[in-house]
């Protein structure tokens, strides 16, 4: 996707020069391999800092919350769905947005790359135009990998690579992945005995340090005060007692029910590698099964937990 960079700069420049937008939100190349930094550009002269490649893994929709200016923003499939959700939830005004759609072929799983080079230092990752392969360089070695083998787990099972809502696209749409089995991991957990399931969750969160990177990387978490930060009453203890940590993770996931686009930003942000998507994904699966719903696909329909429909399933009432 590195070839999008030039086009993105060109579009941003035009939008800023013509005054279509006051600011443009994109990425600049990071100072660390496989880590790009979200950036806000105001001056058309600065558009050359903008960069795009397969390491743009944070969700830019985060940066829309509370803005009142006219902004241009890059949006992949999942990011565009979050923007739609933001608009539906009155966190962004569609009229003030200029969405530059990025047909996405997926974000590289930087942890898997690190594993593949056996933990050796990585000094540079070079992506080939077209983006099918990338080369990892470090002291005394150089290895080339197929991107398809190193996609973030959410990208590997993504069914919405193309933006659903945009004003302009940076490139032709990419083919959507066919015959994706998105929920195999969730099914595995669903089939576990209760005790095994509990053990799985306990193990999953055992390394949590309560830094809230997962929550803060999530565009859905825009509450002025999160329930974990409330002090009157205090809902959750602040220590690393597993009961409190578990409460945080589960409640966070439930707050995302019917809203999560599985963008993977939470899992990518976690400094200790917790598979946080396992919590939200179960609820995504439930939403498909119960309400035939995937978040953020249209500006015209509200999320299932936000509306009442006569045909809503009610088998649980007996």
């Amino acid at each position, binding site marked *: 996707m590195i070839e999008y960079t030039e086009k993105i700069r060109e579009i941003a420049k035009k939008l800023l020069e013509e005054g279509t937008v006051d600011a443009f939100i994109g990425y600049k190349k*990071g*100072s*660390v391999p496989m*880590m*790009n*930094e*979200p*950036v*806000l550009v105001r001056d058309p002269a600065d558009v050359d800092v903008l960069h795009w490649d397969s390491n743009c893994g*944070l969700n830019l929709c*985060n*940066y829309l919350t509370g803005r009142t200016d006219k902004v241009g923003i890059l949006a992949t499939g999942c990011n565009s769905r979050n923007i739609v959700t933001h608009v539906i939830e009155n966190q962004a005004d569609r009229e003030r947005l200029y969405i530059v759609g990025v047909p996405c072929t997926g974000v590289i799983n930087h*942890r898997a790359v*690190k*594993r593949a080079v056996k*933990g050796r*230092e*990585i*000094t540079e990752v070079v992506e080939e135009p077209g983006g099918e392969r990338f080369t990892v360089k470090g002291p005394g070695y150089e290895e080339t990998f197929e991107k398809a083998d190193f996609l973030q787990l959410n990208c590997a099972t993504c069914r919405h690579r193309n933006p659903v809502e945009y004003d302009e696209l940076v490139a032709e749409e990419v083919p959507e992945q066919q015959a994706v089995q998105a929920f195999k991991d969730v099914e595995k957990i669903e089939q576990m005995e209760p005790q095994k399931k509990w053990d799985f969750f306990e193990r999953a969160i055992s*390394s949590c*340090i*309560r*830094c*809230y*990177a997962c*929550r*803060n*990387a999530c565009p859905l978490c825009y509450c002025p*005060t999160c329930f974990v*930060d409330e*002090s009157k009453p205090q809902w959750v*203890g*602040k*220590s*690393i*007692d597993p009961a409190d940590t578990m409460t945080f993770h589960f409640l966070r996931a439930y707050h995302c029910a019917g809203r999560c686009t599985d963008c993977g*930003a939470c899992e*990518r*942000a976690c*400094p*200790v*590698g917790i598979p946080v998507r396992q919590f939200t994904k179960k609820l995504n699966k439930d939403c498909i099964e119960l309400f035939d719903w995937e978040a953020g696909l249209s500006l015209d329909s509200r999320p299932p937990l936000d509306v009442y429909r006569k045909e809503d399933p009610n088998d649980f009432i007996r």
Partner: protein
Amino acid sequence: MSAKIFSKDEWAGVLEGLKDAYEVYVPVKEGDFHNFRPLKEGTRPSFEFQNTRMSPKFLTEPQSERMFEYTLDKNQPDAHILKEDEKEIPPRAVVGIRPCDAFAFQLVKRNFDTPRYKDPYWLKRYEATTFVGLGCNDPCETCFCASAGSGPFDRKGLDVLLYDLGDAYLAQPLTDKGEALLEKTDGGKEADEASWKKAQGLTRQVAGKGSRRVSTDKLREKDVNALYEAPFWEDVAFSCINCGTCTFLCPTCWCFDIQDEVQMLPMVGDRMRNWDSCMFPLFTLHGSGHNPRSSKTERVRQRFMHKLKYYVDKYDDGIQCVGCGRCVQFCPVNIDIREIAEKMNAL
């Protein structure tokens, strides 16, 4: 006592032997990364690491610790009386700590051990700990220890320094505590001339590679208000999501919060001390509801001003950072303290 040399074959036994006299902490591989863990039965120490994911600061400041317990039951004679949580802190040894992380304890000590205030929790643990460092043959790309008052083989804050010579460790005692530890080790032999030469060669070789330089030399002379009002803070803070990754991974961030956790039936409570982070809005929220650092730009500025200016001015002894590079490596949005230090230094 002079330096000792231990072959790697006997190393596991040496660590095991130390358990008689110390609670021993070693690097352990957990999934994709290493962390320091107590050496227990079944623990597999692993010294194949650049640095641990979490800094070893938990050794003196656990993420959560109970300070007091109490009962609120008025029928109890000791109702509302805080009782200190008595802690047994046996002698401990952390083996394999990187020089940057060991130096961090010296920086943090400035806050916990002052002429006026002595933090008993921190100090008790610090004094009980013997720091056995492991020189860095292969410093990370993201670290800049040599620009932060430390270095790959820096000795500050260490009791013993280990040199990894490939098939053996050369253990050099640096303090009485270090000598005492080496005396308690089984096996090993006195370090010979050849090993010393090898260790010196290693130090030169690593120094020759050179770590990234970060300029901090002008921070002291800068006007604090000018830096505070610098035009770049909004840009620097734009991408920040205000999580606690940088501060929780940082070996020199030491802020904590004290909280009462009370439960009903029976009405008892614990007074806890937990790590806190200046990145969190709650960090400065007043009881009145006012928050003097209500925006993320203010919080981001605080973090960097604290480390790179306020400390520099307060102690006149360098920055409150050892250049371990954890925040650089694991910030989810790639905010890089090296670049910010350069910006501040160049203002």
